Structures are given as structure tokens and as C-alpha cells.
């Protein structure tokens, strides 16, 4: 019978056995390591009456009557201090010696609160470390001593992962090292290469396709045409109007249309083989503008006609309001097509997988791809697996199929792994652009500057295919009147097919265009009344509880006025300052089913976050990690974010509509709450293989709802941006104040704002995508992309006042960052030279003739 105190508890033990064995096998104190079992290594160091001693050379009888301490018995503060100091100093590598090392350190520090380097060296001379060379361990002990004697931990680089913390992005290191894999970085045994032969005319009838010569090329593996498509040839997220390949007898609709697909043993031969394919066309005159397309005599681009969609947003009575308003003004604005110019060109790699197919992609939604590919191949969805690699930028331009379906078709046909990567030239021609729009906008106000009515007619050039043209037009209309009290609105929009490249999703989703018109009008009204551009916005800005132009009641988190107030002083201080506001929804809204989904799976003591939410650079994986940390108290190191994979990660929708932080964030929170409950009783290790599922549906009212105050969207972000010019008319400074609800990671939010502002500056001043007879003339070098030396100082102000607990109060930030910039620039130039510009990119500035 032996008695001793173990970590302040009295223990009675019958047998006389090795004390290390007792600690590990009987008392379950596994911090005490068995490194050698012969008293040499010190990994089993414990304190016996305050003195560091090796457990392996003690017995239960020899410690009888003594006080024993192991790592488990340290106070909470000591645990934190030592672990912080060791992590901070980088003193932990394999970690096996660490507990013993800390025990030796404690033995020292308890008696000497300010040990010298020599003291420390002497204290750990019985502990062997093979990894670190001791230098960092000595440093760590020094740090720990400072902490313990001061009673404080100076946390500099330790992250809890909680909300609001600027934790480094979880993928930053891989990306920095260049080891983050994008699809084109992949190589698979037996892989071949694919490419599409594109039409040489924007509009032409395909009369014949002769592949005989091309098939003789030694490197050819396969050539396929429309007749080889096993499933539905027409694809498209909403309207299925986009043929994966143009059939013989059919008309091409834009220059990016594909006529044949080639698979070759090597990349270099693709062009040679394509050149051997003989296609005869009957060239037809392209319909190169909505005006041409809307003529009664115009040929039909699609069977359904040339109008894709008509949209109307109407409340109150604008004509009546115009009659009774002191000031009414009308302007016509012209907005160009613009190109996303994400830095990674589209790439996909498809390979046969049993009875089905696996496709590696880098897009904005793996389930969109799964659906489109399964329909195209005529395969059930469960046989199509889509997995995302890193995505090198998207901005809306990677929502549609561009290469994924072609890679899948070629792989299905050849039964080989096939990679299809677009050249930059193809990328510029193929994927949908920001819609060009022609907008006539009328705004009226009373003598105090209170907006009384807004009317607009919007004609959007939706190009050859629907893509997301319908919803883009709808957002352009629903958001056109801005974040203001405006009781009478009448906005009519029309999206028209042409033979130009398709118009589709692009950061801002139509609102970038319509808000340019309404915001510019406000500046002129302010001038007529004799108040500032800031003042007219402040007088009309929506307050919580008031009715937005779309009828929705602004919620308590609405902070547009706060964003204005944040910029007042700077606005007034500068001579050439332009200002503009915007609102932007988070989520699809208007009654469209919209789900965020997340599954947390515990594997090997780590939480795996599984959602299909695409990160195309905005950092959603870091956001979901922080939400799990916040909800459960776990640390970033406890978490792994798995890549989107249609076989593993639940469908969390597309990374579009600034929705992922809110939708997938909320779903992640719901899953994490379930995990948290289990963690009250169990450790992560004990929860091995258990899954925790969270799903959030954003419930909204349909666009044609009969309610007085429909909920069109679950949340809106608000923003005001200020653009300041110097005396030479060059950009001097941009200050962007954004109501983001609650910033999950402020560094990420700043990154979104800064990037969005520069994109907005380009849209305002330099970016263009000119077309001549439906033929795009831009090369990468002439798109007008801002370079680093072009940019002014950019200051971001984050306003956080949201009270909603959805996703901890986060609202979207991705798109709104680009919306107010262009009208703010326009306003600044109006002040600078008195020219009221009606067209983008602005002409006659420092940046463009």
C-alpha cells in the first residue's frame, strides 16, 4: 500500500511498480513519455517535491509520501504560458520531448523567475531533444519565464480563430510557396489534351465539317462533333440555350462557339490538328446590337426570338410624382461590356472513373458543373464527380461552363484523362462578360432634395446566350433606385440577344450599371437645389424601418447613413471629391430556393469542414474555419477545410450574389453548434467519424409577390465610396466605407474592398471590351486593367452594426465593393472640369482620351 499526492490528489496504490508505467497505464497521464526507459532522455520528467526527476527510474514505493506533478497538473495559466511560449518561439517540432522539457523548465522557473541562458541550459541538461538544437527551446523557456513572472501572456502570433480576428488565410502558405495546385498544374498518367475548334464568324451557318484529314495526324486521339454528344446538347444554368457544339445546319451565335473538339497526345499538336479540320460556313451578317436585334425584320438568334427577358419593378406612381416635383431630370447612360480578366485561365481535367466520370475544375460551383455535365453526357448525377482545385479568380466569369463540359465529353469519348485549358485569347472571347447596357434614367425631387420618384429604362446586351442574363437584368432593375427612400419607382428592363459574347455574371451583377445612372443623376439634382452631393445622399439614405425602393423594409442592421457620416469630413475637405452609395443583396433572394450547407466530420482528432462553397480567392475557407472556432472554441489548428467535392461536400450553392459568408457561414455555424454540444462531454478524438450537419435556407418572397413589403433578400450590404482627384485630375485617394454587418476576418474584408475598388476604378476610367461587328478586339494588354503604379491610396472603413445573428451578423462584401466606385469617379471629374460624362469608360480624363 503506497500513498502519494499526484497533481494535488491523494492516491493510494497497492503494487510496487515502475512509476512511469503507473503514470501512463494506470493514471492515464500520457503527457509523460517513454523515450528510453533507462533514465537518459528525460522525456518522462516529472516534479517530485518540486524537483525534476525521471519517472522511469522511480517506483510507486519510492515516491511514497511525496508530491508528484505532471503536465496535466499545471495550472491553466501555466499551461497557456508554456504552450504559447513554446509555439511562439518555434520550440516544438516532433514534440516528443516537449512535456519533459516543460517540466524541467518549471522546476527552474519556480525557483528562479529570471533565469539566464546559462541557468536554462543547466536546467534542461537532462532532457534530450533531437529536432531543435535547443536554441528555440532556450528562447521559449526565457519567454515563458517572462510570462510567468509578469503573470501575463503577450499574445502576438497565436490565433484563436475567433470572429474578428485577423488570422492568416489558411491557404496563404501553399499559395505563397507555389505548391497550391490549380487544375492546369495537375498531371495524370496517360493524360491527353483537348481543345475546341471555334467558329471563325460570329454568325454563320455551319454547312459541313470534314475531319478526315485531321484524323490522319499522328498525334490525334479523337475528334468529336455535335452528333457525338450522348445527352442533351444544350446547356445553361437557367435557360438551356447554349449548345456544347454547333451542329451541321445550325447557326453559330458568337465567335466563341465550338464546332468540333480535338483530343491529342500532346498540347503542341492541338493547333495543327484543328487547322486540318475543314469547316464550310455560310457567313451571315451578325446582329451586333440590341437595337438591331429588336427590329421586327431582324433574324431570330434563338427560336424563342431575340428578347431573353423583360423585367418591371413598379411601386407608386412616377408620372404623378414627376408632375408634382420641383426638379425632374433625365439622362441617358452607356455602359460597355467588360472582361473579368481573372488571372488563371479556365482549365478542367476529366477522367473516367468506373462507370462514371470525375472532373477536376476551378470554377464557382461544383454542383452546377455536375448538373450540366450529367445532362450533357446523359449520365445520372451520382456518376459525375466534380472536384475543385484552387480557383485563380472568378468574379462571376467562372459560373458558366467554359472547358468543363468539353473536357468531360472528350474524356467520356476517349476513355482517357483529358485536360482542356483555354489560352488567354480564347478566355477573352469565350466566357460571358459584364453586360453592356443602355440606360435612360429620370429622377425627381422636391425643393429640399427629397427624392420623389425614379424611372428607368434599361436595355441589356445579353449577347449570344442567356447565361445569367435574366437574374442580372432583374438585379439591375431591383437595385437601380439605390439605397434611398424613393416612394415611386418604375423601372423597365429588357435583356436582348445579339451575336456578341454572352453577358453574364460579373461582380455587381447588373447593379454596377444601373447604379451608375441613378447615382450620376443625383449629383445634378444636388447642384440644382444648391446642396452638396454628400448632402443629397444623406437626406435620402434609408434608415432602419423605412421602405426601400423595392418595397422591402430596411432591417435594424442597415447602416448606410453611418457609411456616409464616416466620409463627410473628407468629402468636404477636398476640392475634387466625388461620392456615391450603393446597396447589394447577399443571396439569390426573390423566392429562389437558396441553401447554405455544411458538414463537419471528425477524423483523426481534427474537424474537417466540408462544403461545396468555392473559394475563388475571397477566402471562404478561412471564414468557415473562424466560424467553427468561434462557435466551438476549437482552435484553427484543430480544423481542416476539405476541397469542394460533389461526392464529399454538401451542396452549398454557387459562389455568387455575395452569398457564401452568410449562407455557408450560417450553415457552418449550425453544424458547429451541434459539435459544440458534443464537445461538452467528449473530446474530438472520442467523436471520431461522427458528422455534424448544418443547413440554412434563406426564405424570401418571389419577385412578383403581392405583399406590400416583400422580403426580397435576407440581407443587404451598404456602402459609400469617396474618390478624390488631385489638381492634375489624377486619382489621389479613395476612401471606401462599407457596412459589412460584422467582419468575420477584417483583413479578408479589406482585401475584398481594395480589390473591388480597383476593379471599379478600371471600370470607370480604363477598362473596355470593344467589339466591331460582334468581333471582340481586346487583347489582354488592351483591356485597360489597372496596374500597381496606377492606383491611388485606398483607405477602407468597416462599419459593423448588424444585430442579426445569421452568420454572426456577416453580410456580403464581394460585389458591393465595385458598385459605387464608377459614379464616385464620375462625380469627382464633374467637379474637376465641369463635364458631366454619360459613358464608361469616362473620356477626356488623365487616364483616357
Amino acid at each position, binding site marked *: 500500500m503506497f500513498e502519494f499526492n499526484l497533481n494535488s490528489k491523494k492516491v493510494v496504490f497497492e503494487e510496487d511498480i515502475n512509476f512511469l508505467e503507473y503514470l501512463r497505464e494506470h493514471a492515464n497521464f500520457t503527457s509523460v513519455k517513454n523515450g528510453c526507459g533507462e533514465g537518459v532522455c528525460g522525456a518522462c520528467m516529472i516534479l517530485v517535491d518540486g524537483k525534476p526527476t525521471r519517472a522511469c527510474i522511480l517506483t510507486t514505493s519510492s515516491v511514497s509520501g511525496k508530491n508528484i506533478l505532471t503536465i496535466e497538473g499545471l495550472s491553466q495559466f501555466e499551461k497557456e504560458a508554456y504552450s504559447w511560449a513554446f509555439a511562439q518561439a518555434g520550440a516544438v517540432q516532433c514534440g516528443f520531448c516537449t512535456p519533459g522539457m516543460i517540466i524541467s523548465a518549471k522546476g527552474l522557473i519556480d525557483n528562479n523567475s529570471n533565469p539566464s541562458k546559462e541557468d536554462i541550459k543547466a536546467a534542461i541538461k537532462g532532457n534530450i531533444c533531437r529536432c531543435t538544437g535547443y536554441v528555440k527551446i532556450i528562447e521559449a523557456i526565457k519567454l515563458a519565464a517572462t510570462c510567468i513572472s509578469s503573470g501575463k501572456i503577450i499574445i502576438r502570433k497565436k490565433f484563436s480563430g475567433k470572429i474578428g480576428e485577423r488570422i492568416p488565410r489558411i491557404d496563404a502558405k501553399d499559395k505563397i*510557396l507555389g505548391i497550391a495546385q490549380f487544375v492546369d498544374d495537375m498531371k495524370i498518367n496517360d493524360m491527353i489534351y483537348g481543345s475546341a475548334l471555334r467558329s471563325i464568324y460570329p454568325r454563320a451557318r455551319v454547312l459541313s465539317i470534314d475531319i478526315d484529314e485531321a484524323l490522319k495526324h499522328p498525334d490525334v486521339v479523337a475528334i468529336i462533333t455535335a452528333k457525338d454528344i450522348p445527352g442533351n446538347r444544350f446547356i445553361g444554368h437557367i435557360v438551356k440555350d447554349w449548345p456544347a457544339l454547333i451542329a451541321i445546319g445550325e447557326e453559330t451565335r458568337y465567335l466563341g462557339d465550338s464546332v468540333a473538339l480535338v483530343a491529342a497526345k500532346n498540347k*503542341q499538336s492541338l493547333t495543327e490538328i484543328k487547322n486540318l479540320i475543314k469547316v464550310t460556313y455560310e457567313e451571315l451578317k451578325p446582329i451586333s446590337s440590341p437595337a438591331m436585334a429588336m427590329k421586327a425584320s431582324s433574324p431570330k438568334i434563338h427560336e424563342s426570338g431575340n428578347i431573353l427577358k423583360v423585367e418591371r419593378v413598379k411601386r407608386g406612381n412616377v408620372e404623378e410624382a414627376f408632375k408634382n416635383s420641383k426638379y425632374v431630370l433625365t439622362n441617358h447612360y452607356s455602359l460597355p461590356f467588360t472582361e473579368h480578366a481573372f*488571372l*488563371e*485561365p479556365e482549365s478542367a481535367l476529366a477522367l473516367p472513373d468506373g462507370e462514371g466520370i470525375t472532373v477536376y475544375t476551378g470554377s464557382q460551383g461544383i454542383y452546377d458543373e455536375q448538373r450540366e455535365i450529367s445532362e450533357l453526357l446523359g449520365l445520372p448525377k451520382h456518376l459525375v464527380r466534380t472536384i475543385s482545385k484552387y480557383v485563380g479568380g472568378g468574379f462571376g466569369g467562372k459560373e458558366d461552363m467554359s472547358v468543363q463540359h468539353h473536357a468531360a465529353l472528350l474524356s467520356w469519348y476517349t476513355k482517357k484523362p483529358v485536360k482542356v485549358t483555354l489560352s*488567354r485569347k480564347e478566355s477573352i472571347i469565350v466566357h460571358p462578360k459584364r453586360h453592356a447596357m443602355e440606360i435612360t434614367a429620370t429622377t425627381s425631387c422636391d425643393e429640399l432634395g427629397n427624392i420623389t420618384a425614379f424611372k428607368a429604362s434599361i436595355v441589356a446586351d445579353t449577347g449570344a446566350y442567356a447565361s445569367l442574363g435574366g437574374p442580372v437584368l432583374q438585379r439591375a432593375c431591383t437595385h437601380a433606385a439605390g439605397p434611398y427612400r424613393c416612394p415611386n419607382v418604375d423601372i423597365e428592363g429588357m435583356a436582348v440577344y445579339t451575336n456578341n459574347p454572352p453577358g453574364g455574371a460579373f461582380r455587381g451583377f447588373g447593379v454596377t450599371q444601373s447604379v451608375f445612372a441613378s447615382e450620376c443623376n443625383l449629383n445634378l439634382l444636388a447642384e440644382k437645389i444648391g446642396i452638396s452631393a454628400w448632402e443629397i445622399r444623406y437626406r435620402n439614405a434609408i434608415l432602419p424601418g423605412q421602405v426601400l425602393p423595392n418595397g422591402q423594409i430596411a432591417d435594424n442592421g442597415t447602416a448606410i447613413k453611418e457609411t456616409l457620416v464616416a466620409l463627410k469630413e473628407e468629402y468636404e475637405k477636398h476640392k475634387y471629391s466625388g461620392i456615391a452609395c450603393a446597396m447589394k443583396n447577399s443571396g439569390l433572394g426573390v423566392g429562389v430556393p437558396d441553401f447554405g450547407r455544411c458538414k463537419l466530420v471528425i477524423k483523426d482528432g481534427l474537424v474537417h469542414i466540408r462544403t461545396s462553397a468555392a473559394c475563388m*480567392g475571397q477566402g471562404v475557407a478561412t471564414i468557415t474555419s473562424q466560424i467553427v472556432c468561434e462557435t466551438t472554441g476549437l482552435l484553427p489548428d484543430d480544423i481542416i477545410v476539405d476541397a469542394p467535392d460533389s461526392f464529399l461536400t454538401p451542396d452549398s450553392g454557387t459562389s455568387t450574389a455575395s452569398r457564401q459568408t452568410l449562407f455557408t457561414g450560417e450553415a457552418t455555424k449550425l453544424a458547429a453548434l451541434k459539435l459544440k454540444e458534443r464537445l461538452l462531454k467528449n473530446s474530438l478524438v472520442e467523436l471520431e467519424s461522427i458528422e455534424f450537419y448544418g443547413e440554412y435556407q434563406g426564405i424570401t418572397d418571389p419577385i412578383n409577390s403581392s405583399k406590400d413589403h416583400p422580403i426580397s433578400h435576407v440581407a443587404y450590404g451598404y456602402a459609400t465610396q469617396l474618390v478624390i482627384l488631385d489638381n492634375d485630375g489624377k486619382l489621389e485617394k479613395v476612401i471606401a466605407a462599407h457596412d459589412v454587418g460584422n467582419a468575420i476576418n477584417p483583413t479578408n474584408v479589406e482585401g475584398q474592398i481594395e480589390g473591388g475598388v480597383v476593379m471599379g476604378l478600371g471600370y470607370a476610367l480604363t477598362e473596355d471590351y470593344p467589339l466591331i461587328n460582334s468581333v471582340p478586339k481586346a487583347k489582354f494588354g488592351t483591356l485597360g486593367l489597372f496596374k500597381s503604379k496606377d492606383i491611388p491610396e*485606398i483607405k477602407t472603413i468597416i462599419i459593423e452594426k448588424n444585430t442579426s445573428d445569421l452568420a454572426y451578423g456577416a453580410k456580403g462584401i464581394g460585389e458591393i465593393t465595385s458598385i459605387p466606385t464608377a459614379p464616385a469617379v464620375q462625380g469627382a471629374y464633374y467637379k474637376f472640369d465641369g463635364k458631366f460624362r454619360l459613358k464608361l469608360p469616362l473620356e477626356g480624363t488623365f487616364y483616357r482620351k
Partner: protein
Amino acid sequence: MIEVTLKINGKMYTRKINPMLRLIDFIRDEIKLKGTKEGCGEGECGACTVIMNGKTVNSCLVLAASANGAEITTIEGLSNGDHLHPIQEAFIEVGAVQCGYCIPGMILSTKALLDENLDATEAQIKEGISGNLCRCTGYTKIVEGVKIAQKKIINSQEGD
């Protein structure tokens, strides 16, 4: 086919290649270093930037044959195993990475700049990376990252 020898990240590589093969293809496809990215293939975006004999080049505009005998640094040559280059550390800390596609080229331009002029002013930094397009960040955090990298490098030199 012609034989060329290039020293990439300190290692010699000899290959028989098509004389028209671009340096970027040599790096990505022959040597299989995938950190170097192709963004435009026309010398505009800078995603394929590598350091050749101390100067940055767009590897899409250089023929591998004309680089015969040259010393090349790619992104893979900057870090030492898991030990990051101070520029890389700085970019992570400041949040300069979003989609990440421009980053390898951006880092190499930064390195070439700081190797030549460690005290580069903000204007010189912007000039130094003006050949590298970034569509995500608006450059602000990248410029900040370069400034932090300057401090880190200066501190580490003082530490020596």
C-alpha cells in the same frame, strides 16, 4: 531538337527540346515546376515572371533555347522546404493573397526589386511590380506586403 542546359533554382537541367519551346513550357512541362503560371501568354500579365540572371523576365516571351546557360529562379527556389522567404512571410501576414494566381510572379518581381534596391520607396515598389497584374487585391496589400518584407529583410541582415 537542340540541347540546352539551364540552371534552375541552383540545379542544372539539360534537355533536348524543340527550338521554339518557350521558357515557361520548359519550366512547367519539362522540369515540372508548376509554380510559374501562364496568365496571358502575351507578356502582359506577369504571372509567368521568373528571375533570369538576376533580372525578371516574362517566361512566356523567352525561348528556352535563348535561355541556354542562364540561371533561373522560380517561386520554388525561394523557400527552403517549409521555411518561407521573408517576402512570402510578409505576403501571408498582410493578407496580400486572394486567388493566388499572380502571386508567384509578384513575389519574384518583388525579390528582383529588393535584391537591387532594398530601400525602394512606395513609388519604386509600384514601378517594380507594375509588370504584374493582380485582379483581386487592388494591389494595396501587395504593396504593404513588400514594405513589410523590406523590414523583415533589413532586420534579418542586422541580426547577422
